């Protein structure tokens, strides 16, 4: 039997601590029978041993000893689910403010954010922060599970109040698709099975909403083809090909490309992927290409088709700061952008984002978990696109030179809601 080919949907949970993200994912996996019998048995046994009832659904993803002891999620858990036509990669993210860096890790590749909030508490600051980060990261589709409906006796007015609040924020943040669903993750109502307590609601369940989402949106692009050179392969009998993962627009044999930052034009003479020679490739494929002219291309260079990126040493960016020490003007760090690493300094800090008002207030440093708007200066030329045009050539991380820790993630350009 040949199984059908599947597309790939990447999903991340976002929202504040204790609103039920892990429980909802546990419920989704259990009710769609994605857990093996022995895994379910192990969750049951661990629940009993820790005296938290028959089946603590959060234990499906909270797999670390400390997480189970404290009843919180510390780091992202990745789980996988499958339907006949779709593979799901689920990143269950932590809600605690201390672990915002881990939430950003999980959400950075998401097509869809599953926002979980507690109907009795409404929009907490941490939920606002997560939604703001998800919007910055370019997530365009959100499914909002208004959870713990059982605790407000399935009240429609309580639901509507929260929905008004969240849809206003979602609109301000520029999400394109917003679906709100009243659920009880604990009791499995409107997750996979339709609720019997919520006859006033006739929209989709969480599973139905997920099945209706478009896959692959995180590779959405408005840029030309972009191939950051990772590695140069020497071919038998001389000659070289240039290997990397393609993103942006498709690339074809015969396309005119510009090698950047050198600004040299040449033509694609061959394309090879894991399955052999081909005449064209699309975003997300690892390929190696031959070039019609001898060029001095190497790791850190970019092959691009029009419209070309900007080649610069100074640019505006939105920066999520995770470092324990603040970043101040002129302090030097290291920046990794595509396959290039270069020294970077904070040229000017315009300000940091006020999560409550989404306005930028002035500040002279970027502190832990701040989202800042800044001008950065690099030592070497880099070829950047606005993040909204291309998530690969528009993104970067900042690295501490002494410890090699990743202290920030950044997006080229100014987010539209700022």
């Amino acid at each position, binding site marked *: 039997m040949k199984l059908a080919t599947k597309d790939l949907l990447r999903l991340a949970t976002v929202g504040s601590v204790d609103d039920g993200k892990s429980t909802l994912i546990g419920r989704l996996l259990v009710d769609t029978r994605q857990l093996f019998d022995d895994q379910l048995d192990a969750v049951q046994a661990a629940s009993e041993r820790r005296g938290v009832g028959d089946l603590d659904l959060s234990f499906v993803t909270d797999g670390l000893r400390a997480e189970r002891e404290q009843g919180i999620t510390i780091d992202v858990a990745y789980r996988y689910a499958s339907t006949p036509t779709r593979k799901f990669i689920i990143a269950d993210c932590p809600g605690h403010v201390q672990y915002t860096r881990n939430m950003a890790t999980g959400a950075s590749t998401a097509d869809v954010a599953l926002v979980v909030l507690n109907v009795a508490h409404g929009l907490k600051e941490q939920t606002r922060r997560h939604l703001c980060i998800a919007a910055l990261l370019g997530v365009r589709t959100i499914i909002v599970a208004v959870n713990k409906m059982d605790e407000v006796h399935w009240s429609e007015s309580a639901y509507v109040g929260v929905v008004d609040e969240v849809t206003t924020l979602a609109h301000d943040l520029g999400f394109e698709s917003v679906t709100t669903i009243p659920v009880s993750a604990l009791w499995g109502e409107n997750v996979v099975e339709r609720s019997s307590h919520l006859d006033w609601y006739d929209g989709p369940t969480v599973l139905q909403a997920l099945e209706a989402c478009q896959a692959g949106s995180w590779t959405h692009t408005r840029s030309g083809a972009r191939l950051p050179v990772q590695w140069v392969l020497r071919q038998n009998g001389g000659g070289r090909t240039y290997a990397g993962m393609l993103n942006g627009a498709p690339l074809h044999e015969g396309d005119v490309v510009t090698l950047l930052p050198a600004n040299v034009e040449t033509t694609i003479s061959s394309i090879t992927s894991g399955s052999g020679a081909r005449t064209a490739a699309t975003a997300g494929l690892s390929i190696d290409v031959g070039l019609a002219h001898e060029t001095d291309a190497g790791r850190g260079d970019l092959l691009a088709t029009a419209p070309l990126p900007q080649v610069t040493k100074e640019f505006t960016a939105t920066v999520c700061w995770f470092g324990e020490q603040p970043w101040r003007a002129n302090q030097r760090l290291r920046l990794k952008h595509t396959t290039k690493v270069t020294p970077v300094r904070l040229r000017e800090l315009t300000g940091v984002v006020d999560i409550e008002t989404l306005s930028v207030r002035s500040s002279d440093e970027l502190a832990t978990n701040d989202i800042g708007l800044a001008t950065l200066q690099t030592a070497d030329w880099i070829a950047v696109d606005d993040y909204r045009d291309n998530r690969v050539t528009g993104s970067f991380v900042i690295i501490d030179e002494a410890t*090699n820790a990743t202290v920030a993630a950044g997006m080229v350009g100014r987010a539209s809601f700022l």
Partner: protein
Amino acid sequence: MTDHLDLLESHAIFILREVVAECERPVLLFSGGKDSAVLLHLAAKAFAPQSLPFPVLHIDTGQNFPEVIEFRDDAVERHGARLLVASVQDSIDQGKVADPGPMGPRNRLQTVTLLDAITEHGFDAAFGGARRDEDKARAKERILSFRDAFGQWDPRQQRPELWQLYQGKVNAGEHLRAFPLSDWTELDIWQYIEREEMALPRIYFAHERDVVRRDGMYLAVGPHVTPRADETVERLVVRFRTVGDANLTGAVLSDASTLAAIVDEISRANVSERGATRGDDKFSETAMEDRKREGYF
């Protein structure tokens, strides 16, 4: 059309190339099991037509299935790879770990042998075939997973890892574990092996074998498993769903003798591969996390 296997393959190749470019001395951990076979196959693709830019390291517990060692040697030769073998027996002989006896479990002892080999050769990155769907602790781990100078993993202090910006710089004495198959499931692995028509050790396919029932598993009678007085030897048609130490890895009842039959069997399975077949994960609730913290694969 680009399907999920193409995307998983491309992502894995991207990670292999990125780590090789950023690290000084990578190595690929190779057990001869299906996951490391897929990893070696992908590594060959990532650097073709050049030969592999790193050696292949087998941590040999001395409790192997002979078919797996035979496959290991064939695969290494076919890919023109350089094989290094680090032996748990040597660690025992040197008194670095306690001798569990000829039939005793050596699974956890591998960590010492592995860390010693990493130090001895100065490796700063080790590719492994671990997948996040295998275990709840693995589900938490980054694709590039940082290890301190003692080889330890600290699950509370993992580096942020956004987009596909993998950063592999470490200071002297520290190293990375890199897991290009992180987002693959067991079914993805088998579908890919089928699509690529890859060779595998024969024990993955249904065959007749003498087994004994022990700890809820069928263990293969042989040099590493001797039937106890109260155990009955049965001759059954079985296959192995995972390959680990011969005295810790159970066989499953199966008549799947082709890749297509295995894909079909796995797509209908209701027990996980490690749950069905691995004694080493059953020691405690957090057996994998505890071993990983110490520096295990």
